[in-house]
């Protein structure tokens, strides 16, 4: 009887052992690695500092004083006239930008009736030399700030005084500058 039970026990053990060995074998086959490849991937970005906002200040306003009596048309050559308005734009040194502006504007007499009609002409230069400034149309070519981040703009044009009456006139010159 003892022999019989012992024989059964060993048989069960053998069966169990064989079963578990097979399971272990299968697991080992799947986890087999001859090599474990490892690679590194470079992740990168190049950062440029954001450009400062462009600022435009008026250096010199239009000068329509000392006109000839009865003069109704005043031509202000932006390259040579002392009557021009002068603006200074400041931005990122060396950065490219473009200028656009409205070509005409009516100035109204804030004290009564009458108006002055402007047709603008604009020139610009990286250096503060009006007579070497370059004219551009209502949308400029690609321009660049100088190494100090500055660009000079002269505003002239034709001023029509036919409908003007004595008084004080006020209006604005609309200029847009944006980085490219």
């Amino acid at each position, binding site marked *: 009887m003892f022999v019989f*039970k012992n024989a059964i026990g060993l048989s069960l053990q053998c069966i169990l052992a064989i079963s578990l060995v097979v399971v272990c074998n299968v697991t080992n086959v799947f986890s087999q690695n001859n090599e474990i490849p490892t690679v590194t991937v470079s992740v*990168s970005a190049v950062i440029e500092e954001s450009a400062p906002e462009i600022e435009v200040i008026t250096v010199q306003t239009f000068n329509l004083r000392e006109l000839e009596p009865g003069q109704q048309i005043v031509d202000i050559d932006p390259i040579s006239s002392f009557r021009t308005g002068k603006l200074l734009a400041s931005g990122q040194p060396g950065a490219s930008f473009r200028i656009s502006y409205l070509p005409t504007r009516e100035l109204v007499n804030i004290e009564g009736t009458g108006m002055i009609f402007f047709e603008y002409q604009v020139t610009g230069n990286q250096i503060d030399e009006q007579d070497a400034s370059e004219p551009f149309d209502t949308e400029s070519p690609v321009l660049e700030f100088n190494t100090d981040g500055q660009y000079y703009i002269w505003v002239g044009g034709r001023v029509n005084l036919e409908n003007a009456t004595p008084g004080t006139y006020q209006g604005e010159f609309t200029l847009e500058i944006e980085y490219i």
Partner: protein
Amino acid sequence: MWQKTLLTLFLLVAAEQLYCQEIEFGGYGSYTIELNLGAGDMEFFHNGGPVISNSGNGAYQYTVDISEAYELDIVGVKYLDAVVQIEGPDYLYLDGDTNCASDTCRIPLTLQAAYSNSGLLNNSPGNSTQIAMNGNDATVRFPILARQFTPPGPPPPPPTEAFDQSLVEETAVLYLYGSIEAGNLDAGSYFNYITITISYE
């Protein structure tokens, strides 16, 4: 009683030995798995050029979308599972200097990953499975070739000398993508490294 105790001990000992059993049965196998890098780096751009600090969408975010993700090819036995470990950095550092502790010289990185295991001709970002990330790290297991709505088949026989792996190879693709936050940063080149480890399971 003594006989029962003896039998029980036999079984316990046998079970413990079997649990710890590590037979080098597969040591005779020669399965290989390859991880092939894509071209270049995983790079963040702004309109194809440098990223501008204090800019970008939302919280100064720039993204590498999955459609433009960095790709790595995983070449292995198609009926085996691969385990891919991804260890991604939290930041990209100016000139790679990991000693930087200031937000002006490091860029927070949000890494994402996905895999496509539909077969060489069908792998694509649109046919991929996103990998759940733990921060910028992840571990994922998937078959080199997806089992189409069927349970895993029986284990393959161990390879013999006549085994030609090229006959049962397939390619899966791992996609890396994500976003960075380009806040108030010093100008320059920022980089770091993602480590990818792959093995059979």
